[in-house]
């Protein structure tokens, strides 16, 4: 690694593979200039624009919200758009970028997420609202909203799925992303089908398949906790009939003003 003021040269090793022509994946090396604000994605964009137009990867938003650019950098799944390059360079100024593991490779860093999306579809990710819908909003309490906050942040990037050893061994497992989505639905007071959902994910390839290895937590670029969500779903699955009764009862009052606790505050982020 050479130093020159604030910029220096880094060596980026990228796994290349086009299944139409290559027998197996190979690593190719590129040199790029790095400044303190260079991200891993910036390095890929520079290589593609100035050295090798055939380098293939997905990206779009550039700030960790669209979920396109999950890859494996130095053995760890991450989004590359908000990952500073300086954080992943070793002492010799090198970093290695590979596609998300365990998934079929389409080309270079682009993986086939079909199975990931099939599992997402399989759990019916959509809300199933009550038959009677009020003219205005359902009255969810701030506490009910807070319980869903983390699960709704999931950007479906696949970093957790592709780090999950259970997925690697058993493709029928629905996976951490789909179970986190189920947590979002099951715990939503507006959802009318918690019992059916808990039956579905209480089966062979659902919540009990998770071995609590915690890889998904380490991999998640949004710092979410699918394992904890799976734990909660396990508990609910064991008392699903009672939970469904509670839900039906809650929905009786869902269109009415929620009781306001004394000293209840406005949401903290209302000014932001």
């Amino acid at each position, binding site marked *: 690694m050479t130093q020159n003021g604030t910029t220096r040269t880094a060596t980026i090793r990228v796994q290349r593979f086009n299944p139409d022509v290559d027998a197996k994946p190979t690593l190719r090396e590129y040199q790029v200039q790095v400044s303190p604000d260079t991200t891993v994605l910036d390095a890929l964009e520079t290589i593609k624009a100035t050295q090798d137009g055939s380098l293939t990867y997905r990206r779009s938003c550039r700030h960790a919200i669209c979920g396109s650019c999950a890859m494996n950098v130095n053995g760890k799944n991450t989004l590359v758009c908000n990952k500073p390059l*300086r954080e992943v360079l070793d002492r010799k100024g090198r970093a290695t970028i590979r596609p998300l593991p365990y998934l079929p490779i389409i080309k270079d860093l682009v993986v086939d997420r079909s199975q990931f999306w099939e599992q997402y579809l399989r759990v019916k990710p959509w809300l199933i609202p009550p038959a009677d819908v009020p003219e205005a909003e359902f009255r969810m309490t701030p506490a009910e909203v807070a319980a869903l906050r983390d699960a709704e942040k999931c*950007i479906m990037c696949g970093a957790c799925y592709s780090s999950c050893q259970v997925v690697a061994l058993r493709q029928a497992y629905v996976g951490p992303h789909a179970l986190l989505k189920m947590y979002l639905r099951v715990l939503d007071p507006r959802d009318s089908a918690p019992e059916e959902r808990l039956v579905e994910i209480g089966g062979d390839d659902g919540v009990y398949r998770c071995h609590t290895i915690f890889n998904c937590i380490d991999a998640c670029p949004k710092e979410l906790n699918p394992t904890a969500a799976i734990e909660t779903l396990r508990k609910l699955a064991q008392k699903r009939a009672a939970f469904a009764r509670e839900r039906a009862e809650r929905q009786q009052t869902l269109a009415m003003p929620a009781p306001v606790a004394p000293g209840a505050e406005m949401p903290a982020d209302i*000014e932001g």
Partner: protein
Amino acid sequence: MTLTTSEPEIVHDILIVGAGLAGTWAALAASQAGVTNIGVLSKLHPLRSHSGAAQGGIAAALNNVRPVAGTGPRGPLEARPETDDPIDSWELHMFDTIKGSDWLGDQDAIEIMVKEAPEIIYEYEHMGCVFSRVPDGRIAQRRFGGHSAPRASFSADYTGHVLLHTIHEQALRHGVQFYPEWYCLDLIVEDNVCRGLVAMEILSGRLVTMRAKAVLFGTGGYGRAWRITSNATANTGDGVAIAYRAGIPLMDMEFVQFHPTGLYKKGILMSEACRGEGGYLVNGLGERFMEKYAPDKMELAPRDLVSRSEQTEIEEGRGIGDDREGIYLDMTHLGAEKIMKRLPQVRELALNFAGVDIIEGPAPIQPTAHYSMGGIPADADGQVIADAEGTPVLGLFAAGECACISVHGANRLGTNSLLDASLFGRRAGKAMAVFVKNGAPLQPVRGKPAEQSAARLAGFMADAPGEPESVAAIADALKDTMQRNAGVFRTAERLQRALTDIKALQERFARARIQDRSRRFNTDLLAAIETEHLLSFSEVIVVSGLARTESRGAHFRTDFPKRDDDQWLRHTLAHTNGADGPRLSYKPVTIFWDRYPPQERKY
């Protein structure tokens, strides 16, 4: 290599291009109205669409929140007791939007939008959106620039993300068929009738003619024509360029909003909250320069005014950074505690993208191309129109940022974009369903359009005479000239320079070749097509801006610094005209003279 074309073609009742809020709402609404055979193409996976990047909120006069009595309009917010008088109304929302638009917005369309706004928020809520709430369970609302009441429903600072996932899930529930990572190459329009399109399956490189009774474009904005932009890399204005090539005029393309706080050199948006929480804008001399431009509102002045103030400092040599094109956004005086509590995402953004901790030092920022007000002319049902007389292009619809309806006129208010995309997407979906159910036929397609498209793409891989040009280098040069000459400040001289540059780049582009010659997932080819699009509509932006000798909203001409209603209270329509470049015509603005006559736009 040659790209393969495949027959038979794919046929749907309705085809939608773009799977953001506008496209997906259109699909859902048409499906709910009974159309079962709907296809939605997106060059990304639908959940990667740029609608998901919107942070702040979605506007509607719900009246759930008000400032505490006696604390003034910026006072602390409380839930409005349901029995108290409302403080907000669609009329107020309408006035704010018209004023924000600098009176270029069409008031009939704005009226539809603000009246239907509450309904669409409630629909989102019923479909599963997790909005923030006030204690009694109503949807919470925050303030936003240019809105005279707290009107923005929100989910923390990822509102667009939550809306996008919710609507996508519901479209899946209704059996809408998605074509993820399919790229629309050409629109087939003959005799003012849309017959379908040509698309490429990105995975295989296969080109297919797709026919439909109705086609909707919801393809998003065109901010990637500037070097500094908050837009996703996907926002290359594909839809507007494709429509333009098919003979559809483009409307008000000169109007592009520059947000004042994009990260220096990256353009990524730093939330409006940085200024809301009390951040200072400081120039290279350490001066808090907003004193000169807006002594009362200071940093809280409207977006376009702050962007122009920053740009003045930069152009007069008082910028920061190695090219002096930056400004400091200083939040250090807020202290670590407030920053950690109120601006954690902003801090993370600055750390990751600029290597700066805003607790310890100022963040470098600059104005960033943010929102495209112009686009494909359409009415409030999404029906695309071919001219100033309103002649419809039969079977073609548009909604969202690629469309110009025009509800934002010369400048959009924050939180009105999610509303526009959702609401007019839904209206267009309903209108297409009526169109189809009223017996619209599948129109015949002449010739072999997929083969024509394939021949055009083959040009990027053919042997070039002499040294081939680099697509990326041409795109860079275009973004540079747009940044310097068609940005926050424009003059006849600058725009002329941009036009000369664009013409030269278009010529160079004829010799551009790509390196990736494979069929499979060829992103090098996509970049070439996208760059062709940038070169095409950038010319329209510059020509339209050159003709408009006034300053209105986001279009600021330093050589014509005043708004000129006598001459320019009208929409620009740019028609494709072969090698001669765009031919301009004009269309009157719909104004309710008795209710909202033009006034000075003063904050």
